[in-house]
């Protein structure tokens, strides 16, 4: 990889950054000289831009809609105000203090709310936002209550106080542009991809090795810090704070900024904030109608521009793209799978011993044991409700097991989380395909590269800063995913949404996604259900090719001919128990199996 190549890659990946920012700068300076844009709007736009960057990272990427950020924003602002008034601490120091407070609070709130699903997460964060607002109003001895708190000094750099709008604006825009770059790079990196994967489907993301819990928590904390910084700058700029700036109406303003700009794009936030800061100038003589106007605007935007201005621009660009080649003419060429390393143990790769799982009073999997050997395809059949999929969920860690143990290469892996098991080298597909709808096809395949994202702050820093190691792995992931797409004749569709691809190909993409993570064991759950004959043949070839390259496969399937033709060994389940085990020829003549399938 040459230096030029890296620069070229960076420019192309962060194209929006290099296009949007100069255009924005030119347009806003023209408007400023024409007298339509006040310096006040320019400065506050940058402040709110910082807040929305964090909010968009949280919602647009990870899909967590927080109503509590107005609380983090308020704490950032009030820590500057209170520390200046009570202890005469400078604004930079108190900004850091505010951020530390917010890190602690967001960690605690995250522990409480992140394990809750959808609407309860919103309610919990909403409760936090309202509590902060109420506490500010009630604790008037410290915060000044409804009267607000003034006398916040402007920060000093090199002994010069940034009192003019120009000097303060440079500080604020400096912060905003740096954070914009970092956030944008992060959203385009493997962390951003993992976050979008979580937004689409948490279970599938964790099965690809993404540490869902940690990633969500760290993004939540980071976005709280952004809100805190924005709040501190807001307080410094205004020189005073007032509880009205942190009410429910502000929450709505923040959400409106994000949704009007275009959630999930990061750069849309720039347009959204500027528009919302301009709004008072536009609606200047509406007065009381302002709330009504905001409400109507919000309602209209949600329905007319559900993806905001930025989304509308992307939709427009999509129209000018050249039409793609037809799909699925040649299904599968060579399978670009490479086994990362040979199995550590000879013979048995995966050993199941006495696996059991209860659902209430039902014993869905009852004392099942078998071995999966190297170089083999193991079939798993049985009537509906026999516990096949449950067994697969137990192995992959998507369901906790009640009894028994699972050994991969002699190591116990039962009780580990799904992402940890994925990192040990087990990948799976799902009965109903679970591709990530918020990612393009090539990104779907890239999620599992290098065993997903561990969600650590270190990894996020490396990706946001674009360090060489991150770029190298990013480019490798893209190349490998490109090979898979080429083999599926999908290269033209690399950047298409997953919805553009028909069912049969989606199932193949899901297999490619699992294989691109370079597993040593692949679990396939009802792979060919709903596929036509030619697709089944294609699938059979893929699975055989994978086995020949050294991948061990366990497959669940109802199509008996398919299984008998493909598998080296078969286990039969019925009512949660294993009733037979052997080669296809043995299973074919087994009386118990006949009974289970035909009844007597």
């Amino acid at each position, binding site marked *: 990889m040459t230096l030029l190549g890296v620069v070229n890659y960076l420019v192309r990946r962060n194209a929006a950054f290099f296009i949007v920012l100069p255009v924005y700068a030119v347009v806003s300076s023209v408007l400023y000289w024409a007298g339509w844009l006040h310096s006040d709007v320019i400065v506050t736009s940058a402040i709110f831009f910082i807040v929305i960057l964090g909010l968009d990272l949280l919602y647009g990427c990870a*899909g967590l*809609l927080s109503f509590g950020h107005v609380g983090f924003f308020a704490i950032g602002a009030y820590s500057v105000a209170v520390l200046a008034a009570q202890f005469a601490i400078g604004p930079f120091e108190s900004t850091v203090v505010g951020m530390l407070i917010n890190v602690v609070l967001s960690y605690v709130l995250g522990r*409480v*709310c992140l394990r*809750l699903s*959808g*609407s*309860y997460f*919103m*309610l*919990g964060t*909403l*409760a*936090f936002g*309202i*509590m902060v*607002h*109420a*506490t500010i*109003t*009630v604790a008037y001895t410290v915060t000044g209550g409804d009267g607000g708190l003034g006398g916040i000094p402007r920060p000093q750099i090199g002994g010069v106080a940034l009192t003019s709008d120009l000097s303060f604006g440079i500080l604020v825009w400096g912060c905003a542009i740096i954070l914009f770059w970092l956030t944008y790079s992060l959203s385009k990196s493997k962390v951003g991809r993992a976050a979008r994967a979580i937004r689409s489907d948490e279970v599938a993301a964790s099965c690809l090795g993404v540490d869902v819990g940690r990633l969500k928590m760290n993004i939540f904390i980071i976005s709280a810090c952004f809100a805190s910084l924005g709040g501190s700058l807001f307080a410094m700029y205004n020189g005073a704070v007032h509880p009205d700036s942190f009410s*429910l*109406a502000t929450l*709505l303003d923040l*959400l409106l900024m994000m*949704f009007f700009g275009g959630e999930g794009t990061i750069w849309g936030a720039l347009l959204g904030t500027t528009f919302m800061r301009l709004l008072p100038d536009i609606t200047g003589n509406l007065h*009381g*109608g*302002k*709330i*009504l*106007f*905001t*409400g*109507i605007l*919000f*309602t209209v935007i*949600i*329905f007319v521009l*559900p993806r905001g201005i930025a989304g509308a621009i992307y939709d427009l660009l999509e129209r000018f793209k050249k039409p793609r080649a037809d799909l699925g003419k040649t299904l599968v060429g060579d399978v670009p799978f490479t086994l990362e390393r040979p199995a550590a143990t000879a013979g048995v790769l995966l050993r199941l011993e006495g696996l059991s799982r209860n*659902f*209430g009073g039902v014993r869905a999997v009852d004392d099942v044991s078998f071995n999966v050997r190297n170089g083999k395809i193991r079939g798993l059949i049985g009537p509906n409700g026999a516990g096949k999929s449950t067994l697969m969920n137990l192995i992959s860690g998507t369901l906790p097991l009640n009894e028994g143990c699972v050994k991969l290469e002699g190591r116990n892996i039962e009780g580990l989380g799904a992402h940890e098991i994925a990192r040990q080298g087990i990948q799976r597909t799902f009965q109903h395909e679970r591709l990530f709808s918020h990612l393009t096809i090539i990104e779907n395949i890239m999620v599992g590269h290098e065993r997903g994202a561990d969600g650590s702050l270190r990894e996020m820093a490396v990706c946001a800063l674009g360090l060489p190691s991150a770029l190298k792995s990013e480019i490798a992931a893209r190349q490998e995913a490109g090979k898979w797409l080429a083999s599926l004749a999908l290269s033209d569709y690399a950047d298409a949404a997953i919805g553009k691809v028909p069912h049969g190909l989606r199932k193949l993409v899901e297999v490619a996604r699992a294989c691109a993570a370079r597993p040593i064991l692949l679990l396939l759950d009802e792979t060919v259900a709903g596929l036509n004959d030619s697709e089944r043949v294609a699938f059979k070839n893929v699975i055989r090719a994978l086995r020949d390259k050294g991948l061990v496969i366990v497959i669940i399937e109802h199509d008996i001919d398919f299984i008998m033709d493909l598998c080296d060994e078969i286990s039969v389940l019925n009512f949660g128990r294993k009733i037979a085990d052997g080669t296809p020829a043995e299973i074919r003549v087994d009386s118990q199996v006949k009974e289970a399938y035909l009844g007597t």
Partner: protein
Amino acid sequence: MDSVVQVLISGLSQGSIYALIGLGFSVAFMASRILNLAQGSYAVLGGFVFLTMVSSYRLPMPVAFVIALLVAAGLGIATERIVNLRTRPWKPVSLDMAILSTLALLVLFEGAAFLLWGSDPKRGPSIQNGVVSIFGALVSWQSIWTMASAAVIAIGLHVFLKKTWVGRAMRSCAQNAMMSHLLGINVRRIGAFAFALGATIGATAGILVSPITWLDYQLGGFFMLNGILAYLIGGEEDVAGPIVGGLLLGLVQNIFLLIPGATGGLLKQVVPMLILILMLVFRPQGLLQQRRA
């Protein structure tokens, strides 16, 4: 002793209001799975309409009451239509979109109330003036009406949901909207009906509470939060949940007033939110619901 009874009764009366708003919330949530953040607005707007009809147009109370309920029902149907503008029975509205659009409607209603009735708090007409002494505590007739209405509405709703075809259809939509659609239930009409019903229950709460707390345009969010809280504390039980949760919430808020030196503002705002967060931590399924396996 007197003050204890006094506090208990005012707690129950306040709790009845929360319970009613929670019930309205529960009815709409049950049939559509939409968390309607605009639920509090029906109480505010219903209360304002009632107040205007009685004090400005001099209409008799029952007539004004019916008009207020009709307006609220209209708003409820409008909410349902707006939220589901782009959905089909087999393609329900996404959770985020539903919450966002009802949040937008909350603000829209707030703005409308501000334009029509101004920013000053207004006191609504009481159904019956005067007080009565119960165990030495003075209780206003209005509180008694409030508690009685909550009881009657809860019982009526229970019978309606269990015994009538529409009630059963609503419960089936709650469980599986698509299947209900395939079985010939008009899911959208049932949804609209549920929203209308929920809105009228909310408006009743607003009318009952207006002489006690006074109404102002910003109360929608407060009502909504306490209603949701009542629903969450009770657990996902259609009728009993919000009633138990609402009464408990009212009692807790008022019992704290017995502690000397406790300030009202903190209790009114911080304590409910604290309860909500604690509930989400320890019993997200609510008090009445068993922990799911």
